[in-house]
């Protein structure tokens, strides 16, 4: 059971580490169509240069708040991976403790990702009824419930 949960979770959690850099770039490239030709032209360059260009792009185009969210998400990924590695190394004896800790990180990651999606300017059309302030209030509400359950479950 534990390995299974982890396999799926690891897929979802571990992948973002490279993803955060990767994916966020893509937002900008799409938000700025001028970038796209520059990217395609840059495909002739070496992969390192491409990666560097993407990273630079990300730094330039992402709003400060979204960057903050991304940092928090990558932090959550690191914490989750650490817990998981520890669980593999040391065994999962208080299984509820492992589960509550691990699912706290997974749940918080998912909630934060939801916040990031909702506050993203590109998704305005999808979330017509959710203002960024409302999204943040929802985020706080969800996180409070999550932490209540986790604290209750960890005994």
């Amino acid at each position, binding site marked *: 059971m534990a390995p299974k949960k982890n396999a799926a979770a690891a897929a979802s959690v571990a992948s973002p580490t490279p993803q955060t850099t990767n994916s966020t770039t*893509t*937002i900008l490239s799409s938000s700025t169509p001028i970038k796209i030709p520059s990217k395609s032209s840059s495909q002739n360059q070496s992969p390192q240069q491409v990666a560097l260009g993407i990273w630079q792009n990300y730094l330039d185009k992402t709003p400060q708040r979204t960057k903050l969210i991304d940092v928090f998400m990558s932090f959550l990924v690191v914490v989750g991976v650490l817990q998981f590695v520890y669980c593999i190394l040391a065994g999962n004896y208080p299984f509820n403790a492992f589960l509550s800790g691990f699912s706290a990180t997974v749940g918080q990651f998912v909630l934060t990702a939801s916040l990031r999606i909702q506050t993203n300017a590109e998704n305005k059309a999808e979330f017509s009824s959710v203002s960024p302030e409302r999204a943040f209030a929802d985020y706080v509400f969800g996180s409070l419930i999550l932490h209540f359950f986790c604290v209750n479950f960890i005994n």
Partner: protein
Amino acid sequence: MVAKTQEPFFQGSTGKNSRGVLRIVILCLIAGAAVASRLFSVIRFESIIHEFDPWFNFRATKYLVSNGFYDFWDWFDDRTWHPLGRVTGGTLYPGLMVTSGVIYHALRALTIPVDIRNICVLLAPGFSGLTAFATYLFTNEMSTSPSAGLLAAIFMGIAPGYISRSVAGSYDNEAIAIFLLVFTFYLWIKAVKLGSAFWGALCALFYGYMVSAWGGYVFITNLIPLHVFVLVCMGRFSPRVYVSYCTWYALGTLASMQIPFVGFLPIRSSEHMSALGIFGLLQLVGFVEFVRSGVPSKQFATLLRGFVLVVFAISFGGLVLLTVSGVIAPWTGRFYSLWDTGYAKIHIPIIASVSEHQPTAWPAYFFDLNLLIWLFPAGVYLCFLKLADEQVFVVVYAILASYFSGVMVRLMLTLTPIVCVAAALALSNILDTYLTFKSPEEPTTITAPEGSSNSATKKAAKQEELRSMRQPLIGIYSGFSKISVVTAMTTYLLIFVLHCTWVTSNAYSSPSVVLASRMPDGSQHIIDDYREAYQWLRQNTKEDAKIMSWWDYGYQIGGMADRPTLVDNNTWNNTHIATVGKAMSSREEVSYPIMRQHEVDYVLVVFGGLLGYSGDDINKFLWMVRIAEGIWPDEVKERDFFTERGEYRVDGGATQTMKDSLMYKMSYYNYNSLFPPGQAQDRVRGVKMPEVGPVLNTVEEAFTSENWIIRIYKVKDLDNVGRDHASAASFERGNKKKKTTKKRGPKKINVSVNMAMREVQLSTRHCCEPE
């Protein structure tokens, strides 16, 4: 209902406010109808708990109310499953008890002290009103029509398919579970439509409440992921779906794990793997969509899609591998038997032995749902026509629930909400089309068809066609067709109300604790043997006298007689039930040690032979044999209970094993004495009983109720002198014969079987005569 069909009239003439008031009034009336139609049994009989399972819920609720929540949470019940006990706090769904406990305390705080029994009896009708309201909200999400929600609410309020499990006195988990089911689905639809984390979190909270209330929460756990999966497969993935599903899953899974009975199941069992898998899939799809939206290259996009497929296939393979290797628990038998319908009958007789677990017959659908069942496919079809995210949910729910209800009678309950919703969608569509008298008048095009229809006889048919071609008018505008269709629909609706009331009154409102029959003059005669016998047990036995009975009556004995039982309706230990089955189906010499080992003081059997009450223990006897045979195939054999020709007989032609079994003997003990000699009749089996009744050695009759439905036997103590019971009993009975043989000096014959004893006595007498 009548007020509702008039609803669209008010659309134009009166303002929004009056419509709102009307809506509230209608909803209140619906709630009133829902509550009132469930009170037949309380008014006719009395305010008691029905059936078997609710007695345990009632007992647990009383414990909760008198001992507080924390004691209830760690309640170890030593009065059930006698030698073992039951960790009740960890093996029940506490939602129902806690709900009524909260209501009890709230009413007391309002200085309305109501007995907890009345709260338990009236909980289901109260919640059915809420279910009707939840259905209203749910349907309003599906349709813009003003009448759909109200129609669905009234359907849900009085549909017999739901009433059957929620009449007053049926204090079962389903009483609140259906409300929670519909309300959770409403919140889910709301979350998907808005893409709001708030609604997702609320949905998770109510899902947690649902988990605490009913084992059927697995249905939600699989239906919501299935909905999302279908959406993803249709290419309708959107950030809204991601936000709502991930919020629901992350919070809802944690919420469900708080219930001790569920524990780690959401991680470990196969039933919950679909939710986890879809959670993982959504992360992947979300990531890929994210990347794809930014990257122009088509090849890259297809590459990503391939990546998703490969990862999905790999994780699915991993899941299968983990299940096969046993890390993840496979399907439980109860759940598995939904897919492999022959599984339970072969492998787990205890599941197949419950009458609710049989497949549904066609008439049951019409009986429970009347006109809804033929409007149901139309409603689903309408959902196909307007296929938004929420309509997909209706379609998925309808298909899944239809299948399940076909496999198991009991799951008709989960089908009923969606049938009500779909039927309301179809019907409201019809009414919206045919009830609008005014709107066609406004456009000027109306005059054209009217004029053409007036002059239709005079003008040529071709010209008609051409004119109608020029101005294609789609819709129904003739007053006659409108009135006729609306009249027909209203008639159907009125018949539906009549049908529901009739079914509820006649089929679903009889408490199984008291049996009602009619006297020749039409007056009611109540047969109250169950409570008579339980009351006897309560008053005339020791506080801790252990009662052995078949598991059906375990909860009732615990609830009404308040005595410890060996087995009860919570069939968690199959071997223990098989032990009781073996004791019932074996010879007395075999069952007496079993009863001694389990410290049984009284044995209770249900016998309907005198009254023609077919649900008695002789008719259930074969299941006892089968369950016992599953554990001890050498000692109990089903074949031995059938005659040479394979008949199951209880009369003179019964097999010797049958006649020797404890159950047979206890059921028919002294039964002959009721009738003139040679005319003993079993009214259930419809056979004549043999001249000589069975003889009991190890137990003695302690109580037989008025109509012989319940017979209670006391297990004898060990013999004072150390003889076995057969010889002691035959000594008592055959005192005279003993005297004759006494002359031959002390006998050394120590035969256990009574019949053998008599034969020996006969033969010795034969021997004596020549001398």
